[in-house]
């Protein structure tokens, strides 16, 4: 019994310590954000590796998710004689939920894991310590540009995902299943509100971008400096990010649409 209690206490203290380290780290990274402008070339390179190189997977997934939504929505709606409402179904589900959430999950797998592995390896090979020895602040040189790149890329990627998804739904709904092209878009515009639906999706994706990048960069810094430590940290990034995104999504959805 005492064993169990002490184990519980130990893991609780451990997580509290991790949370504390993560918060201090976030604070220091945010303080170092001036480096984003001063070392613009570094930031550019990070946006390239985090954002540009995620574009292909995001757009392809968006296209297929949109096409599947077109099929599934049509199959359900046609029973009620409401196949014309397909545009609204596709747009609302993409803009509100699937766009931000699926993009964040893919982003954690594609870019987050890479960030963790890169920074973890830097720590293991003592590059970070070497930088400090040379009076180069790793927060300014390494962490701040990466953090900003993730924070900027996520909303753009989520918007791309939703836009491509809407076109995917159009291809299937209008091209294959014969929904009228005009009513696809007019239905869509009738039910999708710019502020309540599109903007809240954008806010979601900004929050997810912040959280996923924070987790990814912090896991890299906090990794045990061994090869197992890096592999564990990379796994942790994907798992913790996915859980955080799904949990936050529930809370944000409750806050945004709860009163409707």
């Amino acid at each position, binding site marked *: 019994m005492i064993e169990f209690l002490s184990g519980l206490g130990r893991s609780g203290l451990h997580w509290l310590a991790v949370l504390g380290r993560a918060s201090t780290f976030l604070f220091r990274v945010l303080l170092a954000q001036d480096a984003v402008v001063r070392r613009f070339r570094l930031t550019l390179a990070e*946006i390239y590796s985090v954002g540009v190189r995620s574009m292909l997977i995001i757009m392809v997934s968006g296209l297929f998710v949109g096409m599947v939504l077109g099929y599934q929505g049509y199959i359900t709606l046609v029973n009620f004689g409401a196949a014309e409402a397909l545009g609204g179904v596709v747009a609302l589900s993409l803009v509100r939920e699937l766009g931000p959430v699926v993009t964040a999950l893919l982003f954690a797998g594609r870019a987050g894991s890479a960030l963790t592995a890169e920074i973890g390896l830097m720590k293991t090979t003592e590059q970070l310590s070497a930088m400090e020895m040379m009076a180069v602040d790793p927060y300014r040189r390494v962490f701040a540009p990466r953090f900003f790149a993730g924070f900027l890329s996520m909303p753009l990627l989520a918007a791309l995902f939703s836009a491509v998804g809407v076109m995917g739904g159009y291809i299937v709904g209008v091209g294959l299943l014969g929904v009228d092209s005009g009513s696809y878009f007019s239905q869509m515009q009738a039910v999708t509100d710019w502020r309540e639906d599109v903007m809240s999706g954008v806010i979601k994706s900004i929050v997810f971008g912040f959280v996923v990048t924070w987790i990814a960069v912090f896991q890299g810094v906090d990794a045990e400096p061994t090869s197992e430590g890096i592999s564990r940290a990379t796994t942790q990034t994907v798992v913790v990010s996915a859980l955080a995104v799904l949990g936050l999504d529930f809370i944000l959805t409750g806050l945004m649409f709860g009163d409707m």
Partner: protein
Amino acid sequence: MKLRFLEVSVGVFVLLGIAALFYLAIQVSNIAEYRDRDTYHVVAYFDHIGGLKVRAPVTVSGVRIGRVAQIVYDPERFQARVTLAIQAGQDYLPADTQASIFTAGLLGEQYIALEPGGDYEMLADGDEVLFTQSALVLENMIGRVLTNISGD
């Protein structure tokens, strides 16, 4: 990596992202409605609003000219107080305009239809629509039909 290629590809990425946002705004959502923000408010009291929701359309001859801005219950009049936000350009509604709650299609959403009267005075901001017709409640209608049948 050459700086030139980096700059161009990041620029294309950011542009594409912003273009996607614009696409969502213009093609997918109703941002055009936010352009004519200028509206004036008219109040209407209904005995029963059925399933009317905030942001439901307000139409004249089937053309949408505004939205329902607010629905509250007025405890003094025992009626629902519905505030209609009507586009500022549509200010030629006579004072004896009638407001009715209709349903779009058999299962569609409910909306408010305005039928202009013949008065020379026009509705202005803060005015009340005097003639209203409540939503049809299916249960009441069935009840009436049943009493009619049993009455024969």
